[in-house]
């Protein structure tokens, strides 16, 4: 499902990633690694935010050759998302709806699931980091991506929202066969432990832990 071919990424001559060839079948992946090991860089690279050497494919859509088709199959949420303070939640959802074209009713379900309806009409500048995080997750789940990339999905979320996110991950995998690629310093939640494969980013490359 996710294939990486000779992926190399450097910053100012310093090598950050050097992954020769890697194929990951559909599933849930939990990427761990020390600070500065390149987890966020890898996720941003997979999201198409950064230039790099090599290629990445999801369901055989190459990021290099068919960038739009590739981006249609993935979705990404940042560890500490930022939005323009003058936009409100409705604006962002409308913006995503237009581009991601979710099935009817999906967005309302997601909004209800995280209980964010009451503040969607307020501007982003008034939100707490937890509220911003919840909206970023709702947006990442909007549409029918085959692979959802979540950078540190559990930080800033309260316990209730963490539980809801885990429910959603399980549901999406069951209903839509969606794959997930997380980066996190935290331990895998118990509910996902049996479904998740652990990866480690070490010495610029990805290693399977189990």
């Amino acid at each position, binding site marked *: 499902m996710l294939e990486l071919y000779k992926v190399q990424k450097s910053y100012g001559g310093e090598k950050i990633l050097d992954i020769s060839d890697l194929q990951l079948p559909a599933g849930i992946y939990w990427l761990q690694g020390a600070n500065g090991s390149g987890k966020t860089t890898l996720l941003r690279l997979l999201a198409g935010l950064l230039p790099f050497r090599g290629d990445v494919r999801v369901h055989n859509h190459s990021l290099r050759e068919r960038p739009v088709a590739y*981006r249609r199959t993935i979705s990404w949420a940042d560890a500490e998302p930022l939005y323009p303070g003058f936009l409100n939640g409705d*604006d962002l959802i409308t913006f995503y709806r237009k581009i991601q074209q979710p099935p009817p009713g999906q967005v309302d379900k997601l909004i209800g699931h995280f209980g964010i309806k009451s503040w969607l009409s307020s501007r982003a500048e008034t939100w707490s980091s937890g509220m911003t995080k919840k909206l970023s997750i709702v947006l990442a789940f909007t549409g029918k991506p085959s692979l959802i990339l979540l950078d540190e999905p559990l930080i800033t979320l309260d316990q209730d929202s963490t539980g809801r996110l885990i429910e959603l991950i399980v549901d999406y995998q069951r209903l839509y066969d969606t794959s997930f690629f997380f980066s996190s310093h935290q331990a895998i939640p118990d509910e996902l432990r049996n479904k998740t494969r652990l990866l480690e980013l070490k010495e610029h490359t990805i290693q399977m832990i189990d």
Partner: protein
Amino acid sequence: MSSIPNKILVKEFYRQNSGFFLLLFVLFFGVVAPSQQLAYHYTLILGMLETPLFLGIVLFAWFLYGLKTIRFLLGSLDEPEANFLYKLAALSSGRLFWLCMSIQGLLLLPVWAYSFAVMGVAVYRHADGTALLVPLYMVVINTAGAVCLRSRLLFPGRLPVLSMRRRPRRKVPYWSILIRYLLKEEKALVGGIKLFSCAALYLLLKEQGPDDYDLRMPFLFYSLSLFGHGAILYRCRQMENTRLLFYRAMPVSQAARFGQYALFYWLLLLPEMLVLGWLTPHPIRVTDTAAFLFSGYSVLLLLNSLLYTAPFTNRVFLRICLLIFGILYCCVLGNYLILLSEVFLVTATVLFFRGYARYEMRA
């Protein structure tokens, strides 16, 4: 006592509706030459006095505007950040009423101003009925708004039908986010540059005559303002790199992304277009207006694309802007402006399509 409600309700109303007021201003004051403004509005008011149907239409428009202000006020009180305004309910009945009257009066200020003009002309023309009707009507609209606001403050939850301020927008195109960013967060920078640009164009071009027709000096000032636009573009890109990062991960083709920028810069040049349109065909010729606009537009697109070739520091980008400014002015002296604009436009397109995917923001 009124400063906080004024800030949250009145200032916010004018801020949110700045586009609407700009359009009204252009419609009312931009369509005729400054020397004819008085005569134009005097004629309009005479039309109201002499044609009851016309007066009725105007009063209905004022009613709709009053309704808009009431909806805004009630909708604002529904916002979580305005919840503390319900504390105002603790004021004495009379004070609260007059506070609401003053808030509504400030929201109706443009209508009040025009209604005074109508009253003045009505008194002057001895149209006593209209002279009495207009202020009475305005007092009713003002009071109705104040009563609704007071009622909402005293009895939260009432009048839900009227509070429809923040319905979700049906469309939020990318260019509109960039425009809103400039209007909300870069007002001073954009306002200053636009004021300089439009004033320079108007003042230097209106004196052009057939015998001493020379556009070099106006173009020097115009290209200086284009140079200033570089700062706007740079700020926009910084905002995109931090707060609109998610857009890069979305399934949008490069052509569509370029199209969003093309529309954004077209709108950014709108004030200059209006000024130049006003001065065309006399004193400035149509071909020269086209050259001004085409060159300005192509420079903005080129600067936009250049910002996708590397993560420039503002100092380096300033130097690039200066270089383009120099090239532009040399081409004016050599009469190659259209040719240069075509080159800029093609370069902008090529650089964008080559640079967008390779662009890497500063870490």
